[in-house]
């Protein structure tokens, strides 16, 4: 199954949001479900990043890359990164993959790699 992560576009003023919120942050004039869902682009620029060395339970790696990416449409998202030597501002491309396995389910989200 092809998985997507969606942004939420206000039906009143057109502002895009990620993640979901029930009222538009810009115009505050819409309500629940008054957003159009827009698939998020996968390409963007790496704004900042870290490698975490002391992880919460359930992450069975020694070192986990995380970053904030500005996507081509201007929305920003947080995701995991798999990049050996990341640089601020570099071009990245995201895939939607399992980011966490917990007791209930596989959790899917963005994993970014060098473009």
């Amino acid at each position, binding site marked *: 199954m092809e998985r997507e992560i969606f942004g939420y576009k206000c039906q009143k003023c057109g502002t895009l*949001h990620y993640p979901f919120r029930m009222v538009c942050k810009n115009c505050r004039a819409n309500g629940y479900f008054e957003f159009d869902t827009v698939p998020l682009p996968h390409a963007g620029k790496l*704004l900042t990043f*870290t490698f*975490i060395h*002391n992880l*919460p339970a359930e992450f069975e790696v020694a070192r986990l890359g995380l970053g904030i990416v500005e996507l081509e449409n201007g929305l920003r998202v*947080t995701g995991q990164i798999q990049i050996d030597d990341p640089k*601020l501002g570099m071009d990245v491309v995201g895939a939607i993959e399992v980011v966490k396995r917990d007791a209930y389910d596989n959790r899917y989200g963005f994993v970014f790699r060098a473009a």
Partner: protein
Amino acid sequence: MREVYIIGIGITTFTRLEYPLSEIAAYASMGALKDAGLTDVDYLVVANMGSARINSQSALASAVADTLSLTPAGAVRVENGPASGASAIKEGFMAVASGMHDTVLVAGAERMREVNSLEATDFVATLTHPMAEYIYGVTLPGHAAMFTRLYMEKYGVTERHLAMVGVKNQNNAMLNKDAHLHQPISLEGILDSPEAMTNNPWVAEPIRFFDCCPVSDGGAALILASKEVAEASGRPMIRISGIGQATDTLAVHEREEPTDLMAVRRAAEQAYAMAGIKPKDIDVAELHDAFTILEIVESEEVGFFEKGKGHIALEKGETEIGGKMPINPSGGLKGKGHPVGATGVAQVHEIVMQLRGDAGERQVKGAKNGLACNFGGFGNNVIVSTYTREG
């Protein structure tokens, strides 16, 4: 609104405590009651973040009221992430200011070392956005690291500046018998020597072990009272002069300017407006240095230094106990420790000690106005409050 005074303070040692959470809160509370010369209060507000999850105990305030035999006084628990402590103070302040109660016990307590460090890190990480952050493995050190990298790039903050905050605060903690860390550190040991990188490993690049506060158990308590009760108590008159609070987006990536902490700035502006004072009137401050970068940035956002210049003031020694703007004489979260629910209350415990002139070797001379910044989430719920000594 009525004026509200702090007439009693109490605290436990911040360390690993081998007694139940409700007793940690109660022990600090007994100190505060004794200090105020009271045996009874009208109302209790208990700050705690994690009892239901990490100590298998919910409705903590009922347990604290009963442990102290303060029943049938009303009691409520406040959970507001790492800002729980100051949120409880605000709740107590409103209760007295409104005229509804004359005496309120505000206690904060956390017992985090009941679980291992992985579970403690995960427990704190649950305050992040569930779908957009938490599932990726984002932790608070992770947020602080991504923020630090941006601040380094934009304003020229270096690892040395971060280490300087750690050294200052952990060495201040040497002067505080209740502090968690009683281990002097130096730039040599954590940054410059060949062993430094072994002593001070990465936690989340670019932040290291000595950039992070320890995981602590501990409790702190205050007695808030109306002017009439405060005058009758004969205790020093320390007035809560201003309180401001602001929120920001839950997901950090949604912030318009990623290097701003707008909730700190807005909360501080409200507190100064309420108190009728300016940043230059503050003599001593306790800032929320859960990570060393936060002390630098908060010192700018509360108006002590220009944006992007906090690390310059640090370099010049202005934030040391004898400096122009002493920050975290108690040791801060870095040195004193960070039992999450207790922290906001403990910050004000220190401010009251300082304004009373009771802080001993770490006393800021002649302190009359103090400020505390309790930083919740990664800057998504912040309370700044100011305190003034009268008479």
